């Protein structure tokens, strides 16, 4: 064995993740008196999917609206698979958690002295609930970043956490690789919070950044935690088809363009009549994504493998709102399609794209997982959204549960002692991770394996699924795991800032997470929410109104169980 060295940090609470959930958890844990470390893959203090968010935050702002109505909408959208305890908490605290953000130094976007600037009504919401901010999420992320520094959270940037350290079903810390130095380090902690976000990078086209490789799901799975609803991947219908840099990045939904908007395929047919004759273009995001995906896959797309949005019949007030409330999307719109399309005077091409993940680590109302000392929050945690998420509720979930996770981890840490990590075990793990350092040219680089995973996931576990496709994906993924992982090499052996070292760890996470999605999707022999099985196109409440829960068994295999829905209370 090579001589392996690593340094060590100690905290009461360590948080893994670089977005809003991680930051809010860190601030709350610190306020509760804990010494807090935060490990993020990025060099920004707060980034993740949060900094890319454009869609705003949903809360019960409107007169007449209230937690019960909001809860009902969340659960209806979620195909009633939601953990009702969690959904209730989100619905009850949506407004107060949102307004609390001002106490971290984030000033909200106001219209005048006492009203928020834009509250938009999105699909599936019984009342207008969507707060939109002219900075999109930049103002929020930078304010939270400064709050982290003010409160002396030890933020360690540009690190990839490679393993969760667990001893006797108790989380004891993490093992991480610094991209900057190329060195490994162990963090011992009384409590660990996973806030690693979603898994967009598992898909060929996604609105997410390439850093969201499903790390938290894979680590939680490996440590024996329960994961639920892993088949529930959300897609969004309208995204840029080109150029390559912008491919899959988000435009949004037809509703952004107002009531005159129409969708056409490459043959000039207004195809939504086939998928949702009543609501047409104003259908839910899952049906619209499925329709766009199907038209393109069955050869009715344009020559660029896209479908066409015609926004020409529009209300100028809605165009103005588009320009001011999603300025970033508008700027990109102009960049990609030119001025006439930017003014909605010409049709433009779009593709569907992966957007969000509803499933994840099972948590209770305090963000506790089934592993002692391990907490999860944000997109990596499952349950709030069930089988599908309403617009604007991703950030609401983060604002409500971020501080809950931080407080409950700090409370847990108070009564605990640090459990020193198992040094020989860590050395073995590092050695295993490092055994990939081979000569360039003799094997396959991490990005090549990533491309293979992303391709099979998009084609077989995208908006439209069936048994044959899912089995093909499982075969492809198993094959990569058995035959390619052991010939994965770093293109260069440099230690410092060598992206391949980080990406090699990500490939492992991607395969594990992809297989969890695939097996869960194969098990659910019905269609519900975002999970659409061509071979089982209808929902079947008598058999499937329940959650699919995955856990790793003692022999390393997968236990698949179905469990009753968590009721309110």
């Amino acid at each position, binding site marked *: 064995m090579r001589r392996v060295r690593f340094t060590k940090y100690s905290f009461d609470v360590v948080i893994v993740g670089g977005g809003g959930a991680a930051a809010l958890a860190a601030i709350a844990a610190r306020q509760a008196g804990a010494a807090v470390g935060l490990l993020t893959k990025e060099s920004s203090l707060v980034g993740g999917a949060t900094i890319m968010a454009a869609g705003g935050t949903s809360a019960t702002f409107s007169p007449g609206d209230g937690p019960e109505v909001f809860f009902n909408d969340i659960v209806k959208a979620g195909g009633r698979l939601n953990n009702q305890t969690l959904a209730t908490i989100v619905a009850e605290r949506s407004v107060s958690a949102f307004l609390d953000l001002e106490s971290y130094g984030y000033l909200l976007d106001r219209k005048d*002295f006492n009203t928020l600037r834009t509250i938009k009504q999105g699909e599936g919401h019984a009342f207008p609930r969507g707060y939109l901010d002219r900075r999109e999420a930049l103002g929020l992320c930078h304010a939270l970043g400064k709050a982290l520094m003010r409160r002396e959270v030890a933020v360690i*940037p540009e690190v990839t956490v490679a393993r969760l350290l667990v001893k006797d079903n108790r989380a004891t810390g993490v093992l991480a690789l610094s991209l900057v130095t190329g060195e490994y380090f162990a963090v011992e902690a009384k409590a660990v919070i996973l806030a690693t976000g979603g898994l967009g990078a598992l898909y060929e086209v996604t609105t997410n950044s390439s850093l969201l490789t499903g790390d938290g799901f894979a680590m939680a799975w490996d440590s024996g935690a329960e994961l639920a609803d892993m088949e529930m991947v959300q897609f969004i219908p309208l995204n840029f088809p080109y150029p390559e840099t912008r491919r899959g990045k988000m435009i949004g939904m037809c509703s952004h363009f107002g009531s005159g908007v129409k969708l056409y395929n490459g043959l000039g047919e207004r195809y939504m009549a086939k998928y949702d004759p009543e609501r047409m273009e104003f259908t839910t995001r899952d049906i619209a994504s499925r329709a766009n995906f199907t038209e393109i896959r069955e050869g009715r797309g344009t020559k660029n493998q896209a479908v066409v949005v015609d926004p020409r019949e529009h209300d100028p007030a809605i165009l103005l709102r588009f320009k001011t409330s999603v300025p970033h999307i508008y700027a990109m719109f102009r960049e990609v399609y030119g001025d006439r399309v930017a003014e909605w005077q010409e049709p433009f091409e779009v593709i569907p794209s992966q957007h969000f993940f509803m499933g994840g680590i099972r948590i209770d109302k305090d963000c506790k997982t089934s592993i002692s000392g391990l907490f999860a929050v944000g997109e990596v945690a499952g349950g709030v959204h069930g089988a599908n998420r309403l617009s604007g509720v991703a950030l609401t979930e983060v604002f409500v549960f971020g501080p809950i996770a931080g407080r409950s981890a700090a409370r847990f840490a108070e009564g605990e002692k640090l459990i020193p990590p198992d040094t020989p075990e860590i050395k073995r793990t590092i050695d295993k991770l490092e055994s990939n350092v081979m000569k360039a040219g003799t094997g396959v680089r991490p990005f090549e394996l990533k491309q293979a995973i992303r391709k099979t996931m998009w084609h077989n576990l995208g908006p439209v699924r069936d048994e044959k496709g899912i089995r093909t994906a499982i075969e492809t993924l198993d094959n990569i795991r058995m035959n390619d992982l052991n010939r994965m090499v770093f293109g*260069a052996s440099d230690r*410092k800032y060598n992206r391949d070292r980080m990406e090699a760890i990500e490939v492992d996470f991607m395969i594990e997470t992809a297989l969890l999605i695939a097996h869960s999707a194969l098990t659910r022999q019905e269609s519900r929410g975002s999970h659409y099985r061509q071979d089982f196109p209808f929902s079947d409440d008598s058999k499937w109104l329940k959650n699919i829960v995955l856990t790793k068994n003692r022999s390393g295999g997968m236990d698949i169980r179905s469990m009753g829905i968590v009721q309110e209370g």
Partner: protein
Amino acid sequence: MRVKCDLYRFDPDSGSIGRYETYVLDAASTETILDILIKIHRGFQPALSFRFACGVVKCGECAVMVNGAPCLACEKLIEPEMKIDPLPGLPLIKDLVTDRRKAFEHVFKLLPRLSRLVQPRERWQSLDPETTNRYIQLTKCFECLICQSACPVFADMPEKFVGPLGLLWLAQMSLDPGNEAAGIKRDAGSALEMCERCGICSAVCPCSEDILRLAMATLEKE
């Protein structure tokens, strides 16, 4: 089209000196600098260190110099001939990667007021529309550090001057009713004296609005 790319390579820990490596490759005119960096990393130089995160002009992490002008790599389209350097004036980690964290911590060190907790306040405070609009504009910053890197005064006296980013942060704080206005005024006073009003920061800023000029105007009005 065929593009020629001179890439700066340097590891400050290596003891050797910086150099340029030249790559010639095919690219579409719609590709960005970031696309080219990814292509070179995958196909030609796996040891190349470069940074990016969101890929859609939000996080500010991919800022580099292209032919002597700073830009966000994920926004800037390619040119037939490109010389790509790291942002100058910031500590270098390796190749195109600067130490952003050190640069932020530096501003915090010079502005201890940033480190103070905002005063407890009503969660929802009334704000007049003009202040709100200005605050919203000032907080559209990408925190890409291009302004800091381009500022000649900051290059001359990095130990004393908070730089354009520090001035922007002060301006943001001055509009936030949760902060103590008099102290911010004092901090801003000395920084404003050092600034030479050359306007380079606002010329290089990738934001669509001239937020750095607006920050100066906000502080001068105070």
